[in-house]
């Protein structure tokens, strides 16, 4: 379909702004730009149809099943969007006098208290805008803590090789050296490897639990103890919290700092890649170092305060506030009972789908999984030539968003499914039938899978060409 620039007609416009009701004062000409930007010129009807057509080329959670592993694509309630759009939230300037923003401060303070209760942390910041941003923040807290103690030797962060790629990248950004340790075949921490890795240079460990294979590490208390005993701190990557809300708290597991993806676990929408919110909760040791400012109860109301040893700011203002509004609405709706029910059913749905697929798509691990699971299609590939990618692409033709592909790296031909608790049994039954149908077809007609998808607006893109000769913007001169 045409780009918006290809629909532009010189002179066309929308009548949005009024004539100037004060004397026109042009900028001093030495500051002026030479040529106007070549923005598109359209009428409102053109805009409406352009973006309607684009919306028709997107698969959202409202369109159907979205079992993208590690991303927790649960349903985003309509109420949240309504509340986030309230003028009382959306129309507030971040630098208003504090007595005029008591409602905003209450949102931040209450969301903090509730999320601390869920995670077992002491205090929380909402400044980080995404999970990776939260990781950086959490690591900076750890760094500030050791520095504050005068311990300059702790320069290393231990990361299992099954971790999300953000973990080592964040550690590196925070100026740490990364120590990769191999994990056991089930993705759990190899205790011996961990013991061998810790030492006086250990700043901390980054871990997600359940791990990226969807297993809860049964040695979790030993793991965190080993790190603590070595003088390090434990960082909880909250990517997989959806399995354990109300079931087990990272704080109780021995973690000192936690980041949450409100846009995953707490049902705020992902917007095609943000805005998210990577709230970071800190235990007693790290709370004094949290970013500034932080909303807190004060004199019958709320006020901003700066934690005593704050690392500073990691973003302007207070984070993606409207995302916090949505998350607060979600938590108040579910309550303590509802949160654990959500996790239990997320786990049930994953196990149920895993059981339905197992005859055709062997799980990478035996036993019960948590909220997600990984299958390996290594044998399928060997026998039919059909890859995990082919299977994923064939799912597009069924109206199912494919699972996460080729992750974790320790599993060959991996597909990682996370159905979430907001899918019904019927949806899982239907999806399983579709997927097993594809897997059966792999033997009979592998070519049809190599050719998938057929019904999508575009076919498989040539990603190599895209990267080799990057075209990152529209070229007007190619018209």
């Amino acid at each position, binding site marked *: 379909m045409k*780009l*918006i*620039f290809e629909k532009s007609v010189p002179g066309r416009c929308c009548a*949005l702004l009024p004539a*100037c009701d*004060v004397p026109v*004062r042009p900028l001093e000409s030495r500051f002026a*730009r030479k040529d106007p*930007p*070549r*923005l*598109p010129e*359209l009428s409102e009807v053109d805009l409406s149809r352009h973006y*309607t057509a684009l919306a028709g*080329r997107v*698969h959202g959670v409202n369109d159907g099943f979205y079992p993208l592993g590690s991303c927790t694509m649960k349903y985003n309630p309509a109420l949240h*969007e309504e509340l986030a759009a309230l003028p*009382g939230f959306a129309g*507030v*300037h*971040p630098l*208003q006098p504090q007595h005029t*923003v008591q409602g905003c401060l209450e*949102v931040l303070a209450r969301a903090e208290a509730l999320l601390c*209760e*869920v995670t077992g942390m002491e205090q929380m910041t909402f400044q980080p805008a*995404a999970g990776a*941003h939260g990781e*950086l923040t959490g*690591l*900076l807290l750890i760094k500030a803590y050791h520095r504050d103690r005068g311990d300059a030797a702790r320069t290393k962060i231990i990361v299992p090789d099954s971790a999300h790629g953000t973990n080592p*990248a964040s550690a590196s950004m925070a*100026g740490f050296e990364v120590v990769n340790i191999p994990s056991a075949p089930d993705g759990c921490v190899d205790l011996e490897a961990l013991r061998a890795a810790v030492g006086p240079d250990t700043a901390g460990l980054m871990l997600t639990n359940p791990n990226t294979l969807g297993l809860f590490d049964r040695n979790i*208390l030993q793991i965190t103890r080993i790190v603590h005993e070595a003088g390090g701190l434990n960082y909880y990557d909250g990517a997989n919290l959806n399995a354990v809300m109300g079931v087990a708290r990272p704080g109780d597991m021995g973690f000192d700092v936690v980041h949450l*993806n409100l846009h995953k676990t707490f049902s705020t929408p992902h*917007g095609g*890649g*943000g*805005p998210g919110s990577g709230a970071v909760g800190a235990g007693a040791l790290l709370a004094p170092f949290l970013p500034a400012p932080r909303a807190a109860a004060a004199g019958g109301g709320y006020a901003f305060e700066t934690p005593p040893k704050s690392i500073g*700011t*990691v973003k302007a*203002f207070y984070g*993606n506030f*409207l995302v916090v509004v949505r998350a*607060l609405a979600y938590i*108040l709706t579910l309550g303590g009972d*509802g949160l*654990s029910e959500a996790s239990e059913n997320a786990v*049930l749905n994953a*196990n149920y789908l895993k059981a339905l697929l197992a005859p055709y798509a062997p799980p990478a691990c035996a036993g019960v999984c948590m909220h997600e699971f990984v299958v390996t299609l290594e044998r399928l590939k060997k026998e039919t030539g059909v890859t995990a990618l082919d299977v994923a*692409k064939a799912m597009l033709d069924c109206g199912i968003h494919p699972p996460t592909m080729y*992750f974790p790296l320790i599993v060959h031909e991996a597909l990682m499914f996370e159905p979430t608790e*907001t899918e*019904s*049994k019927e949806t899982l039954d239907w999806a399983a039938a579709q997927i097993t149908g594809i897997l059966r077809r792999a033997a009979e007609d592998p070519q049809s899978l190599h050719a998938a998808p057929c019904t999508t607006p575009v076919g498989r893109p*040539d990603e190599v060409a*895209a*990267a080799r000769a*990057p075209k990152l*913007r529209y070229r007007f001169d190619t018209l």
Partner: protein
Amino acid sequence: MGSYIPSTGAQREEMLRAVGVPSFEALYADVPQEIRFPELKMGTGRSELEVAAELRAMAAKNHVFSSIFRGAGAYDHYIPSIVKRVTAKEEFVTAYTPYQAEISQGILQSIFEYQTMICELTGMDAANASVYDGATAAAEAAAMCRDRRHSRVLVSAAAHPAVRSTVRTYCEGAGVEVAEVPVRDGRTDLEALQGLLAAGDACFYLQQPNFYGVLEDAAAFGAAVHAAGAKFIMGVDPIAAAALATPAECGADIAVGEGQPLGMPLSFGGPYLGFMACTHELFRKLPGRIVGETTDSRGERCFVLTLQAREQHIRREKASSNICSNEALCAMTAAVYMAAMGPQGMAQAAQLCTSKAHYLASRLGETPGFELAYPKAEFFHEFVTRTPVEPQRLLKALEEQDILGGLPVEDGILWCVTEKNTKEQIDRLVEIAQEVARA
């Protein structure tokens, strides 16, 4: 109890049987007994009616001012209705990052269009699909400029305080030195910069217009920075950018900025949008998502996330940034905004801002004591005046009339005027200011 779980009790029982476990409890056998099922000290779930009422009550505890003369990093511009309508479409709102290009062309194309518009606005060669906000964009830009031989980061003290502190936090984490270039008469001190610049410097960050609303002689800074072998980063206001010499024209290597003015509501500070664009030489160092054009298996034009070899999921600890989720829906918002405004609308907005800001400045100037703090400086839509009375007294009087006045700063009050402020509102503000000055 509130819940968004569709499966009924009966279905759940059936599913447990299919899985082969006797109970939910059994699913959690791996969780150590002593930490299992803590009692969460919070209320039980509530109905939608109750939660809606409770959040509405919180919103009602905030005051939404009917006229706003405060900017300082968050700007009250008019948001065209079509922008809100388009970006509320559920498909855009509820989708994940567009990993699966075949069913994500809508998002991918909109971001490709956004990247192009940011390039046009800044004059740069390439843009990414957004970072978190203007402050983190500055920090990420500084990181792009570092290499083995260049490390120190110079920042104008006339940059927004949040930008300065965020750059500092990021740099301190990475063990990088930050130095501030002082301000003189509301402008960044070019001579001081020249004195500071040294061989190991990575970059200098200049904000245009700066925090005090003042226009800097950006090209001169660019020349000085390049002469020292460092990179020149400009932080720009996107509405002003429609009128001002582009970062490219000023010699910038990287242009960044806070995209909130492009159609995002004030929202108590977020979600906002960090935009980033750079020269052709640097584009492979851009952090975050980037969308590129390619062809599909049918030979048709299509779009994909590209240059992923830069990113954390491939490079892990060798990645230069950890960003993955960005502000995609805000980037789309900015794109719809720019498309709705078009070049004419953007120019008109800029002209209205400048004209109205100068009108307020001149009207305020009628009252003794309200002198411009930096009378020789040209400004865009923000400016500082000294005040004949304690700023808080004036601001309180304005607040009582439902007007959010400017922000108190060292030299007085930092005012902001946009196309939304009518002459009537401005005149009313001046009237109150005169009353307070007289009292």
